[in-house]
């Protein structure tokens, strides 16, 4: 065995004065970091196995454990960073692609943090959402070209109705949905938490490409079913058991890349849900093998609309890439009712690190570009825009909506609410928090009742904050903010960035 060149990333600092050798850490670590020494009754830790998930630190009853980043011993070098060296050591040892999980963690500019929101002063009154009504209900789906109304007489009184039938719409109590995360990539308890929270709060979760588990059929009214390149678990029942259908073309974390769920993870439950033989690899090809043009995409959209009898919105999810605006324009013309755009910071269960960290563009720029392009072409109303790829707070939601989004998807934020500590080791399937794993010993750790409660709390908190910010800006309905870029100002951005975002710099008045 040749010498391993990589050093451990974390250091477990154990306060001996506080450690009572209760072994909670030993029992909770799926990476076998901690070990109880019976001879002298102490717990020892192996730094090299620690992934930095903080499970032991969180559960330690005396607070004796602290996980610290182990400072690199490398000679400082701005070009050859420790990460480059470590990856080369790893690849020289294994000959493989460096895998990682969750979203891009590199210090590219985060445009949300360079955009500021407006508030009312003197000339227009702000609104107190605790005293006055504040509407944040959102509808996702194709809107009519013009508003044509007709008076009708119903049960003895005159009321106004739409002249033509509306296209199918999704009704959201808050402009936030849970992103596509498949059963397989995350545990059934995690999916159950998302499904229950979505149904209790009045929003939607997305099945991802893993099919719909039989236990989740009851949440159909709050489910977006996904059709991806592997077509796992897709049949007429599946399509009709959700409230909307989403065709997945790309994912922000790995644009242009397919997926691979190893056969070891395809247990009986996953195999029946995905409709594939037990133990077989579930491979999602990089492209849909029947989609090579906008016309092909249109065929699939209409095939799905036929299968669901035109009763459900059909959307298309793409990752934010360089030509996202013209692609989105094509998708609208292909007949999609909503477009989901996933920025390059979007999460994943597993992706090659080189792709995750170097491919795609920030969602802020993609969103602004798509919204402007669709407006210029006069087709913005034909489609709803859902954006994803690192929405971290209610402020990001507000800014996204002012930049032109109809709603946002949250994936990472939802998982963090469930306990995720972003250790980026989902691909090992050893998630100590019971989220990204199928190991029955670990999946028990996520009690869906607690998970549901936490997700509902998160949505409740964000709703309050969204209403407060809207009220502060003197707006009483989220519809009035949509695409209202006058409420945004950039700080520390150059002319080009401001022009792509379509916003003024801070200090510039109307």
């Amino acid at each position, binding site marked *: 065995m040749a010498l391993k060149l990589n050093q451990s990333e974390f250091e477990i600092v154990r306060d001996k004065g*506080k450690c009572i050798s*209760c072994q*909670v850490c030993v*029992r909770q670590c799926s990476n076998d970091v901690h070990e109880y020494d019976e001879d002298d009754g102490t717990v020892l830790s192996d730094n090299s196995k620690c992934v930095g998930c903080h499970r032991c630190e969180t559960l330690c*009853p005396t607070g004796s454990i602290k996980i610290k980043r182990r400072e690199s011993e490398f000679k400082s070098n701005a070009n050859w960073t420790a990460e480059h060296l470590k990856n080369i050591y790893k690849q020289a040892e294994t000959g493989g692609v460096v895998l990682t999980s969750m979203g891009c963690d590199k210090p590219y500019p985060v445009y949300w943090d360079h955009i500021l929101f407006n508030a009312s002063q003197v000339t227009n009154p702000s609104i107190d959402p605790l005293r006055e009504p504040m509407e944040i209900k959102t509808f996702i789906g194709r809107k009519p070209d013009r508003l044509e109304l007709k008076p009708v007489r119903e049960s003895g009184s005159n009321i106004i109705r739409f002249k033509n039938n509306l296209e199918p719409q999704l009704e959201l109590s808050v402009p936030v949905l849970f992103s596509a995360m498949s059963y397989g990539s995350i545990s059934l308890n995690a999916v159950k938490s998302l499904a229950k929270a979505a149904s209790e709060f009045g929003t939607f979760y997305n099945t991802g490409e893993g099919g719909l588990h039989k236990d989740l059929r009851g949440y159909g009214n709050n489910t977006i079913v996904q059709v991806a390149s592997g077509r796992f678990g897709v049949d007429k029942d599946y399509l009709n058991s959700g409230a909307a259908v989403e065709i997945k073309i790309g994912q922000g974390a790995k644009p242009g890349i397919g997926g691979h769920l190893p056969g070891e993870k395809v247990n009986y439950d996953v195999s029946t849900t995905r409709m594939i033989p037990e133990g077989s690899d579930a491979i999602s090809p990089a492209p849909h093998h029947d989609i090579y043009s906008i016309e092909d995409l249109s065929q699939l959209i209409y095939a799905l609309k036929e299968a669901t009898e035109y009763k459900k919105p059909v959307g298309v999810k793409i990752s934010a890439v360089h030509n996202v605006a013209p692609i989105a324009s094509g998708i609208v013309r292909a007949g999609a009712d909503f477009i989901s755009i996933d920025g390059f910071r979007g999460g994943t269960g597993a992706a090659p690190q080189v792709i995750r960290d170097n491919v795609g563009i920030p969602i802020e720029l993609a969103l602004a570009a798509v919204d402007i392009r669709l407006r210029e072409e006069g087709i913005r109303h034909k489609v709803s825009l859902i954006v994803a790829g690192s929405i971290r707070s209610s402020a990001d939601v507000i800014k996204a909506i002012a930049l032109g989004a109809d709603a946002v998807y949250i994936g990472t934020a939802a998982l963090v609410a469930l306990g995720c500590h972003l250790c980026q080791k989902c691909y090992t399937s050893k998630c100590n928090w019971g989220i990204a794993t199928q*190991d029955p010993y670990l999946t*028990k750790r996520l*009690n869906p009742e607690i998970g549901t409660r936490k997700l509902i709390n998160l949505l409740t908190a964000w709703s309050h904050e969204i209403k407060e910010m809207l009220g502060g800006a003197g707006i009483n309905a989220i519809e009035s903010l949509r695409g209202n870029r006058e409420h945004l100002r950039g700080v520390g951005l150059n002319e080009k960035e401001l022009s792509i975002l379509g916003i003024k710099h801070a200090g510039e008045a109307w």
Partner: protein
Amino acid sequence: MKKIYIKEEYCIACRLCEIYCQVKHSKSKKILKAFKNETDILSRVLVEEIGYNSFAIQCRHCEDAPCVEACISGAMQKNKNTGIVTCDEKKCVGCWMCIMACPYGVIKRDLSEKKVASKCDLCGDEEYPVCVRNCPNEALQFKDI
């Protein structure tokens, strides 16, 4: 009466219930002092584990408690008002008949001082038993029948 319900599908076998039970029944009631200075504190809740299946079990405070029936000294009593079965350690003579009779195996021999039977007292002086309060995954619930 309120009883402890076990949701074994969410027991993660961390054994924090046992640890906090030990602290509760220590002299100092402080976790560091209890574990560093006191010896042989028994936990009255026990985590049973086979493979990935586990659950924490403590006295069920049976309606028709066999341990009370079996007790020769009158130490084991069921409180008519609260329904809680407790062992009066002053009266207990350590004959272990209760241990023989208990169908759940949740009474233990406490040999630290005088031989007595040690069992769950539902933390009568607390709103919630400490095992329930400290279960990180709500695998133990304290609720009315």
